[in-house]
């Protein structure tokens, strides 16, 4: 099986988010970038599915040269090879279009993305890729098992789950539960240095969206503390003051 895993380079989860240039630019100063945690899950499942010579896992990233440390981490975790599309990812449409061009030429049985990236939380690339390649896409899956010609997936829905079968090829956005993230071992880290990382120039594509500015949530007022033995007061406050119960 030939699997393509789309990976993003995102700020570490502990990052305090701030902006510069009159709140028009994300402040990358001092920010450590990591492999998007959901993509790590996708990659880990891809490696499990191809374990023991049952296939290959290619990771693809749309990003500038600075993302190569993240790509090398994916190789250290166990990807077979990597592709970097040499461009700043403008928006989900731009990313999906670039990846689709690559996937059209190098056909894959399965394309995995994380359910979303933790920076812009779009969860759009999987669906856009599905549409651009005219194949099924399924978002927010919690389980993925592969047979010869099709996979069985568990998709999260409000208040429950759905179990679907989907013939290859298709695109899936993976969430927690699909696999435990793998930690690179020393052998993986050493071999990652020599694994192929191909750089591809982007194709031209129009974009449909642009981030104009950022805001941080308004600070909350001070907490009103209620004594532990006066729970009735809390219930009264929630009813009479906050009006939420």
């Amino acid at each position: 099986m030939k699997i393509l895993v789309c990976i993003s380079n995102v700020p570490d989860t502990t990052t305090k988010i701030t902006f510069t240039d009159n709140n028009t630019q994300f402040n990358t100063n001092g920010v450590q970038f990591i492999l998007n945690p959901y993509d790590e899950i996708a990659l880990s499942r891809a490696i499990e599915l191809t374990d023991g010579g049952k296939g290959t896992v290619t990771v693809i990233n749309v990003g500038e040269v600075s993302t190569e440390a993240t790509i090398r981490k994916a190789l250290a975790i166990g990807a077979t090879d990597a592709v970097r599309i040499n461009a700043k990812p403008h928006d989900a449409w731009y990313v999906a279009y670039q990846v689709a061009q690559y996937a059209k030429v190098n056909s894959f049985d399965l394309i995995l993305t994380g359910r979303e990236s933790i920076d812009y939380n779009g969860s759009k690339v999987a669906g856009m890729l599905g549409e651009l390649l005219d194949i099924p896409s399924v978002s927010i899956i919690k389980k993925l098992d592969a047979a010869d010609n099709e996979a069985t997936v568990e998709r999260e829905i409000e208040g429950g789950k759905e179990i679907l079968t989907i013939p290859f090829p298709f695109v899936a956005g993976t969430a927690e539960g699909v696999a435990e993230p793998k930690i690179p071992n020393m052998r993986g880290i050493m071999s990652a240095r020599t694994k192929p990382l191909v750089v591809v120039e982007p194709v031209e594509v129009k974009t449909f969206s642009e981030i104009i500015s950022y805001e941080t949530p308004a600070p909350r007022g001070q907490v009103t503390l209620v004594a532990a033995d006066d729970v009735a007061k809390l219930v009264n406050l929630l009813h009479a003051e906050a009006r939420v119960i």
Partner: protein
Amino acid sequence: MSVLIYAENAGGTFKKSVFEAVSYAKAIADQNNTDLVAISIGDVDAAGLASLGKYGAKKVLNVSGDKLKNFINQAYASIIAEAAKKEGADVVVLSNTFSGRGLAPRLGVKLEAGVADGAVALPEQNDGKFRVKKTAFSGKAFAVVELTSANKVIALIPNSYKVVETGGIAQVEDFAAATKQSDFKAIIKEIVRAADKVSLPDAEIVVSAGRGLKGPENWGMIEELANLLGAATACSKPVSDAGWRPHSEHVGQTGIAVSPNLYIAIGISGAIQHLAGISSSKVIVVINKDPEAPFFKVADYGIVGDAFEVVPQLIATVKEYKASA
């Protein structure tokens, strides 16, 4: 031109998040001095369909059929895109639900539309610009996105826009859209829905607990409190990682982001990743025995105390309150 709202149903019923999205879409239609058309796919009865008129839909397109009983995003996207073209809709609104998030990107490609998902406010439209505020960095910030395409797709986060009844009557008409055989490659084998459980992403109240609960055997009181309040249950990442609760209950930066009216955090210290997922909650209550827990810094109300003493008291008080209400 018009605005099209996709009214998603769960087992034939519209949820509150749909009425929010219809109200939101109606406000966009009013901004543009145009009409709002709704589309429903699946098994919703006539009264349910007509009810969308109350929130501003002038017309409801009804698509039904055995093959369309359950959500298949490829097929649904084809139908909605066709309806948008037929109605000349340049703005398509849907709910930012699990299904909506599978649908919006496919619609974006079909309609060559910019997609603003995670929308939390009405678009600002000035000088031909169309700007939508959306969540970013998992709730740690908002981004204002300008959609530069002629068509636009917006996915609205549940609980971020109020339901507005305008009191109109919708004309319901059947809509037969063409779908391709290849739209149905994914086959739904089984749907498991916990009927008595409140769905977490669109819950109005969430009762969430963390490692302070010490073990999965102590979740009974969390569930009891949630049941009393009509709330969904949730948990922190360490709890789902430990297998005490399912991953589907994990709220936070790498879990589900929620925006309820009331978020009650019990025995959760408030790591930055957890706070990211709950920051748009309207009211936050924190119960923790550590007065230095970072969660108190973002809470509206707090109790410094042991969950095993406070929660049973809370259950008893809410029971009394419910009985007297």
